[in-house]
């Protein structure tokens, strides 16, 4: 039964290979296969989500090699949640791309599937080096997706993006080297056992390795001061690629949550809380810088990119608490932030494509074809992103404020979150009024399209916006699951014993 765990990795891998080798020149077949694979992946993710919701940690020993030696994939509630989020987002973004975005360059669908392979693998693996490999798979596909559509800007921004990620990968390998050199293992469950027993003489080396490891995750999660790549890369990427990348920053957040609870959690002896002095200040500054960026943006895409940076700051403020309410709030906010970031990237692309040479710059220009619809959507998306009631951003921020109520740093945390929300509110109000109202008030006004029909891409944005409304409406059940996940994360002993004690007896298994 546990063998199903590998399906989210295997399915995109096979689909991508088949798309490249067999139907390379046939866009129609590519679309059918890619969409079909995404539907199956979504069904598999729902199945695994229901399987994991009983709170049991399920390991899969690849090749039946016993745990500390072979590669192990682990399905727990956090992995299942992330898989479901990825599959749902991928399906929605793919539907959007089918409206013509996928024919702007070759190989969109294979790259899309390879990207899913890397992301799903990173969420499932229980081995640090394997995590590195899945990061690389994810990144190399994202390089291709980022360049999709071509053009000078994408090439130049792509060079920055690739270079910074290659440096991050190098640092990742240095961290892995240090951790393996000290503990002699790379299995995450085994690390949770070995790290507390570190010899006093090797503690400094292990500490260096741990901080290097977290700095790599901070690059992925766009934490200040390692966030500068994000506005450049996401601002240059095409709409479906940027929307899918909304989950990539969450891979960094996932890795921070995983390692901060499992390996370097409170039970880690001398290494307990190794990033505690860094995480909260970095998260607070990230939120402040993101909010300032939102206010300073001169283009809609910059506005969205800095909102993503700000949302990562908010998320990691909640992670810093490492208790059930904090982690639960962080997970709720993670789901919300993924949906709303994707919706904003797609919406900005649709709006900018109708504004002629002004594109997404914040200045009065041609009226868009459906001003009421687009401005209404922008208003809703802005409300959700800033965290105004009644959409899910408000619920998420409220949960985070509540979780940090008893923190020693409550003054700094609350004032940053509330102040940043106000600044972002001003930024969004200014952007929306310039783009939508300023156009209506002068000679640039054109007659709106009188029909009531809604184009397909806009309908897909509406689905994403509806998701945030539903998240707000069903906040109770979602939080119940997030709390259960947080409690499972805070008891790493269950994870460790499930992985290490469930091992097959003989190395390699019996033939």
């Amino acid at each position, binding site marked *: 039964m546990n063998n199903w765990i590998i399906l989210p990795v295997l399915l995109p891998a096979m689909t991508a290979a088949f798309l490249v080798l067999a139907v390379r020149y046939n866009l129609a077949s590519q679309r059918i296969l890619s969409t079909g694979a995404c539907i199956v992946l979504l069904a598999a993710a729902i199945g695994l989500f229901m399987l994991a919701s009983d709170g049991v940690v399920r390991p899969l020993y690849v090749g039946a090699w016993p745990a500390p030696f072979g590669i192990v994939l682990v399905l727990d509630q956090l992995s299942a949640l992330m898989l479901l989020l990825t599959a749902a987002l991928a399906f929605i973004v793919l539907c959007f791309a089918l409206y013509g975005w996928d*024919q702007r360059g070759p190989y969109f669908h294979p790259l899309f599937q390879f990207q899913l392979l890397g992301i799903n693998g990173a969420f499932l693996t229980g081995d640090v080096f394997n995590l590195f*490999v899945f990061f690389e798979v994810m990144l190399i596909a994202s390089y291709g997706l980022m360049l999709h559509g071509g053009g000078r800007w994408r090439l*130049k921004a792509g060079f920055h993006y690739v270079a910074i990620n290659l440096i991050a*990968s*190098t640092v990742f390998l*240095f961290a892995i080297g240090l951790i393996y050199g000290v503990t002699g293992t790379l299995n995450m469950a085994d690390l949770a056992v070995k790290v507390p027993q570190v010899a006093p003489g090797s503690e400094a080396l292990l500490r260096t390795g741990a901080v290097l490891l977290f700095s790599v995750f901070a690059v992925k999660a766009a934490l200040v001061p390692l966030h500068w790549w994000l506005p450049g890369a996401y601002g240059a990427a095409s709409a479906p690629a940027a929307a899918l990348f909304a989950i990539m920053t969450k891979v960094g957040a996932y890795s921070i949550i995983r390692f901060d609870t499992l390996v370097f959690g409170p039970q880690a002896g001398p290494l307990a809380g190794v990033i505690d002095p860094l995480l909260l200040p970095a998260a607070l500054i990230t939120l402040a810088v993101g909010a300032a960026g939102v206010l300073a943006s001169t283009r809609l895409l910059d506005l969205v990119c800095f909102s993503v940076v700000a949302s990562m700051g908010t998320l990691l403020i909640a992670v810093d608490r490492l208790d059930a309410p904090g982690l639960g709030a962080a997970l709720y906010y993670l789901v919300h932030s993924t949906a709303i970031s994707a919706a904003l990237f797609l919406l900005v692309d649709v709006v900018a494509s109708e504004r002629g*040479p002004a594109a997404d710059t914040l200045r009065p220009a041609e009226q868009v074809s459906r001003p009421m619809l687009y401005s209404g959507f922008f208003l809703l998306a802005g409300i959700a992103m800033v965290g105004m009631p009644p959409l899910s951003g408000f619920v998420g921020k409220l949960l985070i404020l509540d979780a940090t109520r008893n923190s020693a740093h409550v003054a700094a945390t609350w004032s940053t979150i509330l102040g940043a929300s106000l600044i972002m509110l001003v930024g969004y109000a200014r952007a929306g009024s310039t783009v939508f109202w300023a156009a209506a008030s002068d000679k640039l006004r054109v007659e709106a399209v009188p029909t009531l029909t809604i184009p397909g891409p806009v309908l897909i944005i509406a689905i994403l916006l509806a998701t945030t409304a539903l998240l707000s409406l069903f906040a109770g059940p979602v939080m119940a699951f997030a709390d259960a996940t947080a409690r499972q994360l805070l008891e790493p002993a269950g994870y460790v014993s499930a992985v290490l004690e469930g091992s097959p007896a003989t190395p390699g298994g019996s033939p």
Partner: protein
Amino acid sequence: MELLVASAIGLLTAVGAYLVLRRRTFPVVIGLLFLSYAVNLFLFVMGRLAIDKPAIYSPDVAGYADPLPQALTLTAIVISFGMTALIVVLSLRGFLETGANDVTIGPDDMQRTFGSQQKRSGHE
């Protein structure tokens, strides 16, 4: 020997870090190469330095070299090779499209397309 290996890794990293901070794409690519050399060497010695020891365990040898870092290094070499090939192609394409190998993004470069149709909309 520890001093020799450690200073070699340190030198490679220093050269890589210096070159990565240059303004042209070519030194940046070379710098990334140096960084990957440094980390491959680092990974290789993380199983401790051992001379004339077999990597595969058998009952009649006294000690053996840790084989896992060797496998990790191979994987890291393959990945960094692929990534380097990609960034070389990327910088070549950038050079051919813009006529310069400057890393910075100027206002002229900030042109991109929006929407699903092949129509160009840029910023002035």
